[in-house]
């Protein structure tokens, strides 16, 4: 009985006459080890979480898509009269003043994270990926903001940005000279203020992810490059970076998803208005506030969904390849 490989054969043989034997013989050998009770248990162990996942995530996702073609306001049932076709989208693209600014802000958010914050996180990871005195302390400090709630991050940065009481305006003498900059109130700059606060967190997050990737790079590759006379920068760009391709994809996906999810800071700073409009905030403002334009809010959700599918599919195809 100790050897599963040999014992599997009689187990299958004994079950062969039972119902479902046709299916069982086609499958792999280990399957036959499972009793019917085991199969029921497996179905339950996967089925219960899966049902919850479908009911509370995929169901609502599909519902968002369907509701975006209606003018439903959340009361009563959805009837044929509620179906308005593409009207919500037409309104969204042509008649809704906040939509394009929100798209623009999401894109700025993405670009800022992708071209500034993420590379900085990678740089810190590369700098710390060596024998270095105090390395642990450096790492911990850079990572510390990642564990803070965004609400706290928001309040901490409000102390920096406040017009007359904030550190920045006082430190640069802008209060004394009467040239106060309203970092969070001025609609043309407040998104960058929010982005700096976000980056405070994002950079540490990317650093940790990237450090883990760097540690998995075969050190002999670097040694070889060194022997061949490559400088450290050359080694990184020509040897390490290509080897890190899988983790690079993850980093890009994480960055994109973080940018699309952005909500908390903009909400905390000014409820996502006046220069901080984001798609995520428009959805909630239109459908869950007093307006309750559910169909319209869902149309914005679908736009966000479609954009999000890009990084999600990239991530899944990578994960699929890793599984196979």
């Amino acid at each position, binding site marked *: 009985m100790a050897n599963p490989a040999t014992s599997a054969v009689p187990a299958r043989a004994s079950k062969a006459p039972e119902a479902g034997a046709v299916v069982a013989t086609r499958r792999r050998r280990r399957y036959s080890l499972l009793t019917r009770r085991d199969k029921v*248990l497996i179905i339950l162990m996967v089925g219960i979480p899966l049902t919850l996942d479908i009911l509370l995530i995929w169901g609502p996702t599909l519902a968002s898509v369907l509701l975006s073609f209606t003018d439903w306001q959340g009361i009563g049932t959805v009837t044929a009269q509620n179906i308005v076709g593409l009207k919500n989208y037409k309104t969204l693209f042509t008649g809704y003043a906040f939509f394009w600014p929100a798209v623009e802000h999401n894109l700025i958010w993405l670009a800022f994270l992708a071209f500034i914050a993420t590379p900085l996180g990678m740089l810190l990871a590369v700098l710390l990926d060596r024998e270095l005195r105090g390395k642990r302390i450096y790492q911990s400090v850079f990572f510390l903001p990642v*564990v803070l709630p965004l609400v706290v991050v928001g*309040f901490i940065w409000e102390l920096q940005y406040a017009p007359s009481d904030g550190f920045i305006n006082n430190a640069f003498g802008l209060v004394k000279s009467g040239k106060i900059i309203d970092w969070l109130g001025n609609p043309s700059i407040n998104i960058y203020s929010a982005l700096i606060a976000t980056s405070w967190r994002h950079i540490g997050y990317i650093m940790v992810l990237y450090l883990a990737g760097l540690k998995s790079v075969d050190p002999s590759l670097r040694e070889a490059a060194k022997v061949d006379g490559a400088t450290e920068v050359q080694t990184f760009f020509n040897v390490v970076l290509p080897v890190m391709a899988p983790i690079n994809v993850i980093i890009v996906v994480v960055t994109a998803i973080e940018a699309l999810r952005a909500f908390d800071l903009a909400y905390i700073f000014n409820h996502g208005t006046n220069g901080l409009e984001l798609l995520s905030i428009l959805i909630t403002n239109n459908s869950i506030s007093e307006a309750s334009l559910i169909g319209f809010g869902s149309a914005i959700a679908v736009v966000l969904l479609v954009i999000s599918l890009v990084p999600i599919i990239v991530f899944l195809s990578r994960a699929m390849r890793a599984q196979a």
Partner: protein
Amino acid sequence: MSTVAAAPRALRNRRTPRPRRIRPARIALHAFLIATVALWLFPLLWAIYAALRPVSETIINGYLSWPKTLNFNNFTTFWTEADLPYFYLNTLVIVVPAVILTLLLASMVAFCCTQFSWKFNLVVLMLFIAGNLLPPQVIIVPLYWVYLHTPIASFGSIDIGRFSFALFSDNGLLYDQYIGIILIHVVFQTGFATFVLSNYMKTITKEITESALVDGANVLRIWWSVILPLCRPALAAMATLLFTFIYNDFFWALLLLKTGDKRPITSALSNLAGEFFVNNNLIAAGALLAAIPPIIVFIALQKHFVAGLTLGSTKG
């Protein structure tokens, strides 16, 4: 023994000449890192500084001034006037069940998807992972409706002073209930936890499960007494990470809880700061108090924290 000990020393010896050759670069590197560290810590230290000063002093001298008095009055004021222990308790009754349930469900799915080969196991894994990657705002509108229309039984409540944990709902719905918040966290985080745990369980050979089956154990027993103990490092890492994720949540609590008294500390803080506490010194104190639990977890369990994040990324 001596050969084992000698090997790493030899390695180290071979490496020592390298840093010595680039000494000036080393100094520049440290200078850069120290400057960055200072920059990184500054916002936090500034918040601590503001929180330690009485508001009367900062009104007169401004925030950018040398301190005359430093004390913890803002912290104690916020602690008592905001009834902060109560909101910590709210967070606790949401976070602890959510983390435990997430780990149980996710480890079940990961176990069944990695230890047995069946037709749809990849599809199931993908559904969970993709679900976790969706921005929550994509599903919030229909979810809000579901929460308002799902009947939940009421069997009284567990009361501890002002705090009341309804079994399972005090308004017959999922909306505005602790269990509603717990549920959405569990469902959302199960995706991520399943992904990480399945990455970990892939490294466990299927023969362990097979021989346990041969010995007559059923799958539930194998999951609980064979596989889960083997996954202890991954479970510890995930628990740390999930605690922080769920503790830090703002969005779900903001939208799925209406009663201010049920809010966990993060979303309560944003409420309180707007309504009751207007001076920056007090708000800074409140924000720092809310940040203490995750900071403690981070300091105590940093290793698990980093392990959790890297398990989720490097093997994907």
